[in-house]
């Protein structure tokens, strides 16, 4: 087994001035599970690239210090040789595949073929790795037909086939839905249980913290904390003047745990809960639950309509959409939307993106109709409808193309021929806190910041309706907060914001209305409290309720949406 030693590493990428890593030292014991977290662009990916020797062997720059895996110095060993000791799984599930395999089995066997493993053994070993990550039934499938979660497990099996002692995963779930994310975390847990060392980068501390023996927190290129997760998340153990709440997305169970301690419900010296089960256990141990009904005082805001308002901004009447392939993605959807923040939820393939593309005319209904501010989308071009509906897609790299951030944001208002384009650009830059990077090349920014640039470029169009596809995916704590505030501002200005998202915690905090889709049909439409309390709907939509709602349900309380709902019912 191989311990990993990182000793005083400082690294500056070629053509940049600021170090991506500064004096980083740590030891990763063989067989341990180490979580890595911190804000975007803090050095997490750069740290991971040290372990398989990508730095300094592939990414050039000024490298100081040393990294050893077992007794191998990574700076003097080829990436190929290190591939036998350290397996690396990238963030993007598609780009890391060979691009030359027609089946999943071929993809997983690729590395073994390069090493001349006897043909008789190839298939057996490849299938064994697929079994380990739970997708052996996909062995004969074309990789191009798999979901992101399935592809990411193919990638894990492909590197595991080389039997590395250390598995490094760089934000492997940031582009996946909840099912895919759970499947990848479960597969990684099994791999760790079988004795391998795991180093996993994620912003998702609700899933990462319970599995990790240690959390490494990076900020501005420095390793600022290396401790067990409960210590990292407990300000008291770090000293009164230090908290990482601004650097990490605090898991909701920890948030609930802190409030329970602040209220004196749970003793302050008890370790913080990292899972729903731990939270429920400490509440039942230390408090009495009063199971009175929680009044449903929430309502969709004024102007948000469900069906029959006189003149809503968006009216969808019995819309069906059948793709050329014959897939019926929408099956008679009827909705009206006028204002507030509306969350569109549902599992992959439920029809969310198809529905969103109907709102600005990218798709036209096969039957029924969609009316946007009085205009039937069948009678207007996308360019015309873009003055009414701005749509931001999930992947920012599918749209950014101009030299600087400022110029990119100007693209939308320019297309609309707005005379006040500069005022709009300035407002969008301020709204998404992009002032410090306004002159930067967009592709020099991290993905999370690029996503905010894409969002700003649409906000600058100042459309009455804004549709956002997975706005919080891959964002750090600060990014989620900035986007949340921007959405609140838009709603306060009276605009309609439609969010397609799997992030139920974000929905809980920001949405006024939740529309759940399944198999192209609306299966629920109501306030977050109503929809999240309906277990049948949540199952059908492939979602898990927010943590505090699940804690409430485990205690016999239905409709818990906020920690205060819970605290009020504890004696």
């Amino acid at each position, binding site marked *: 087994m191989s311990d990993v030693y990182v000793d005083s590493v400082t690294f500056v990428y070629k053509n940049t001035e600021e170090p991506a890593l500064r004096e980083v030292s740590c030891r990763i014991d063989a067989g341990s599970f180490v979580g890595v977290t911190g804000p975007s662009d803090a050095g997490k990916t750069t740290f991971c690239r040290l372990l*398989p020797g*990508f730095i300094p062997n*592939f990414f050039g720059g000024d490298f100081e210090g040393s990294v050893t895996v077992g007794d191998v110095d990574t700076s003097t060993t080829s*990436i*190929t040789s*290190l*591939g036998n000791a350290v397996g*690396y799984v*990238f963030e*993007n599930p*598609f*780009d*890391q*595949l*060979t*691009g*030359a*395999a*027609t089946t999943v*089995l*071929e993809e997983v*066997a*690729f*590395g*073994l*073929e*390069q*090493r*001349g*493993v*006897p*043909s008789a053994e*190839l*298939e057996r070993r490849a299938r064994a790795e697929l079994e380990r990550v739970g997708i052996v039934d996909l062995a004969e499938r074309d990789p*191009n037909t798999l979901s992101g979660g399935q592809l990411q497990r193919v990638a894990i099996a492909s*590197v595991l086939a*080389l039997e590395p002692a250390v598995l490094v995963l760089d934000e492997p779930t940031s582009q996946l839905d909840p099912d895919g994310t759970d499947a990848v975390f479960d597969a990684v847990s099994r791999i760790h249980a079988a004795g391998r060392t795991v180093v996993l980068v994620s912003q998702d501390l609700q899933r990462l913290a319970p599995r990790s023996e240690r959390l490494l927190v990076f900020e501005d290129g420095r390793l600022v904390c290396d401790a067990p997760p409960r210590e990292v998340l407990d300000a008291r153990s770090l000293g009164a003047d230090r908290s990482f709440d601004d650097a990490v997305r605090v898991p909701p169970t920890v948030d609930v745990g802190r409030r329970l301690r602040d209220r004196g419900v749970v003793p302050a010296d008890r370790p913080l809960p990292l899972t729903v089960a731990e939270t429920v256990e400490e509440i039942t141990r230390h408090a009495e639950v009063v199971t009175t009904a929680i009044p449903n005082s929430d309502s969709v805001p004024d102007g948000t309509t469900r069906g029959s308002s006189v003149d809503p901004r968006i009216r969808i009447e019995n819309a069906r959409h059948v793709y050329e392939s014959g897939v019926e993605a929408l099956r008679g959807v009827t909705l009206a939307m006028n204002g507030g923040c509306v969350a569109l939820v549902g599992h992959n393939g439920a029809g969310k993106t198809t529905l969103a*593309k109907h709102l*600005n005319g*990218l798709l036209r209904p096969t039957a029924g109709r969609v009316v946007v501010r009085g205009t039937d989308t069948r009678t207007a*071009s*996308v*360019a015309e409808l*873009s*003055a009414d509906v*701005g*749509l*931001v*897609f999930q992947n920012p*790299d*599918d*749209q950014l*193309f101009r030299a600087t951030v400022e110029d990119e944001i100007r*693209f*939308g208002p320019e*297309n609309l021929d707005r005379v006040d384009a500069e005022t709009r650009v300035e407002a969008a830059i301020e709204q998404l806190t992009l002032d410090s990077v306004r002159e930067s090349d967009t*592709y020099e920014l991290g993905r999370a910041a690029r996503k905010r640039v894409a969002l700003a*470029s*649409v906000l600058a*169009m100042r459309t009455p309706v804004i549709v956002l596809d997975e706005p919080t995916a891959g964002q750090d704590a600060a990014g989620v907060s900035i986007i949340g505030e921007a959405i609140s501002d838009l709603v306060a200005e009276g605009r309609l914001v439609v969010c397609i998202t799997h992030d139920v915690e974000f929905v809980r905090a920001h949405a006024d209305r939740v529309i759940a889709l399944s198999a192209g049909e609306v299966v629920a439409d109501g306030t977050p409290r109503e929809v999240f309390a309906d277990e049948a709907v949540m199952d059908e939509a492939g979602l898990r309720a927010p943590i505090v709602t699940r804690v409430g349900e485990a205690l016999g309380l239905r409709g818990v949406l906020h920690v205060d709902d819970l605290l009020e019912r504890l004696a």
Partner: protein
Amino acid sequence: MNGEPVAYHPDDSVVHRLHPVTKVVLLVCCILGAYLAPVPVLLALLAALAGAASLAGVGRAVGRAAVPILVPLGVGLLVIHGLFTKGAGVALLAVGPVTLWREGVLYAVSFFGVLTAFVLAGLLFVTTTHPKKLMVSLTEKGVPRKLGYVFVASLQLVPDLQRRAGRILDAQRSRGLDTSGSPRNRILALVALLTPLLIGALISTRTRSLALEARGFSIEGPRSSLYSLVESPLDHALRVAAVLGVVALVAWRLV
């Protein structure tokens, strides 16, 4: 985007089972043969290709892919040669000032036959040849391994780029980009489409090259393969027959 690009159709027909090198030889000989052959032999070749496509169960896929290529080609040939290749000056049809020349039509039809053979042979090859097995067999015959990889990877790159281009176009139109109208609009649309496409392709390539390197693509030493390819007597017979056929056609042309 015009539907899905033509791709390998997995099956176990006798055509699918042929050794990939045999299919490369047959493809090359079909192209040379169609070019050299007299009309009766060309017709026999076309019938053989159609029969092989049917036998392999890819007749419909080949037909669907061939029609959009061949119909415009056929119409173009007929118009250009029928109206402008006067030859001996025998008119087939005259309507006002427009005359359809007999010799031109005959030339267009025979050239169309040759092009049809090219297209059918190519499509039959692509739909029945397993890309990975092709790469393995070419490597075994001495083709550099990296060249084989580039060939197979490029087959998958086309549909990937098509999907990405569709997404980029959607995203830019959602920001008010007008893809119709004036030449200026169209050039702007092209820049807004191609820049993210190229940058995205470069980023993907960098990740992929790193992943390939880590999985041992550049490692020295012997390789193994999931697939063991066998050359049957049928393979040998077909290769010899195809080469002899081309030699015979060359001889016929020369005498």
